[in-house]
């Protein structure tokens, strides 16, 4: 085990270890970061939602974008799987359909980073109890 010899050692160590609990830190303040829900019901998984989710987690992490990626149940858009719902801080949720890794990359580059909307938006037609 490495010994902490000075404050710099500790700070370096802390930065390396941050990743271990960042998921918990983020879930404590979800409203301040990008929230992404990936629809992971049977239809979503069959259409490749797991790949999409893994890709988004890795990509957002490597670009150091503060985001919480969670899985959720069927959103009902089985014709457009994989579907994801993206909520930018202070914005209304936007649902995207047919999100493969290529689409995911486009969503990250355009919508998440710059707020530009991209094709494939499913107009929201429901209310959730979370909004109450």
């Amino acid at each position, binding site marked *: 085990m490495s010994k902490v010899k000075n404050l710099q050692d500790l700070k370096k160590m*802390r930065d390396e270890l941050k990743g271990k609990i960042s998921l*918990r830190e983020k879930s404590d303040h*979800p409203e301040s970061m990008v929230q992404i829900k990936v629809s992971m019901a049977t239809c979503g998984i069959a259409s490749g939602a797991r790949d999409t989710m893994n890709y988004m987690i890795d990509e957002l992490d490597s670009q150091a974008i503060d985001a919480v990626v969670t899985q959720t149940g069927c959103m009902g858009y089985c014709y457009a799987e994989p579907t994801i719902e993206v909520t930018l801080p202070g914005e209304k949720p936007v649902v995207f359909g047919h999100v493969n890794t290529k689409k995911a990359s486009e969503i990250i580059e355009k919508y998440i980073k710059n707020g530009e909307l991209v094709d494939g938006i499913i107009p929201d037609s429901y209310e959730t109890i979370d909004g109450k």
Partner: protein
Amino acid sequence: MARFKNHILVCGGTGCRASESEAIAVNLKRSIDENNLENDVQVVRTGCFGFCEKGPVVKMVPDNTFYVHVTPDDAEDLVLEHLIKGRKVERLLYVDPETKEHVSDSKHMDFYKKQIRIALRNCGFINPENIDEYIARDGYSALGTILDEMTPEEAIKVVKDSGLRGRGGGGFPTGLKWEITLKSESEQKYVVCNADEGDPGAFMDRSILEGDPHSVLEAMAICGYCIGADAGLIYIRAEYPLAIKRLKIAIEQARDYGLFGKDIFGSGFNFDVEIRYGAGAFVCGEETALIHSMEGLRGEPTVKPPFPSVSGYKGKPTNVNNVETFANIPAIFLKGADWFRKIGTEKSPGTKVFALAGKVNNVGLIEVPMGTTLREVIFDIGGGIKGGKKFKAVQTGGPSGGCLTVNHLDLPIDYDSLIASGSMMGSGGMIVMDEDDCMVSMAKFYLDFTVEESCGKCSPCRIGNKRLYELLEKITLGKGDEGDLTRLRNLANVIKDTALCGLGQTSPNPVLSTMDNFPEEYEAHVKESKCPAGQCRALMQYVIHPKLCTGCTLCARVCPVDAISGDKKMPHFIDTSICIKCGACMDKCKFGAISIQ
């Protein structure tokens, strides 16, 4: 390093562990492995979440779903439904008692809404047995920064500026205590952590040590640097095995990382701690008694001065602080004294952890800013009184404190307001009582505790408290007279004025405060031989209402002492001279014909 997409936080506090939370964690892990999710999902055993009433508690991250009353059999469903299918397991969600709706996110629960967690900041968040998680939460960086950049005087100034006061009950300014110890000249000084939590119903210190032991260790090292001590001692009662185990692990890890030992952070400062076990005596929470106990002597207090800051352990200057006080220290240095001062009230900055217990819906561990009202604590966070009964009183400060009534519900809680209203902060136990609780019996319960725990050194406490107890006993048996009330009050005041240490000086408080707040209850006992709350057995009478009794004979058959007589299909009668008041007849009666008078 594996990058987990989900963390499952399982409460590993004593309460939840007693309800098999360890088996839940094991089953979760097994189910995760069976479904090949071991690289995606991490199971973490954390410290106490505070919501003990609903334990065992399991929290899913990152979606923040809070599951309550989980059993080991539920583990598989959590994995299959929540993790794999992404559906919340509704039957395990918290149900809001008012709206009857399921609440999944803990942030939307009334229990958590008004809390600010400083001392408990890592409880229920990190794995207390893993120093890495503490370091990732900025652990030990307060210590590192102080050693790198501050003189002891500068560091003490931060603590003084923060206005932090001792959380063990006395409320003495922590920074001032440190300063006095620094100024006491000696080659050897000691830092002592008082983890001898003795109040009945209090478990905040235990929970902090179980949930975040490193924060206390780090603070002890900071204190050591500030006062010029290289040795720390933790005095903990042997009846806290889990806290001791986690402390030992934490100390080992800190030593391995070079955060304890010689030349910490290359600063030349040495520090290490030892654990000392107490046998669980209430008086040993008093600092001089605690020190004697650590020295291997009888746990008896001595007169102050000299204060431990001047002459303490082995006659050397010793700084004694409580667990919760220490737990606040790293946060104060990380965020600044000004930040701390903005929380709480002017004279009592910061937060206080309370162990909420008794007849309240949400029993648990809570941390609220000083100045929060009792109403907010009991009705908003605590969810009100169990069974829709009426609130009667709340006992704060344990056996040394007093009771507060409906009139005090809107009192902002801090050290001074509680003293002014005849109670005290104490270590933070809060026992809520409803209309069925008899105040005389309550005072008797605490006196029983004090009599048991008195060390016997001074006569006011040893003999006086015993006599107080006997008077209360007489009253609850219905044998008291009005003169007893005067005697009770006089004796209580004498003990208060003459006892040697805090234990004796405060032991009459429950008697005096109940006499002040509920005089009519004492009078009912002595004048009418009645217990208005219906709790004092000797004063109760079971009676059968002749109009409601159908003469079914069931009561006569269950009565263990044959006190009930009567012919079939005719109203029955209880002979109160034989009745032992066991209540069996009342439980059995199908017609509600038996009542207590």
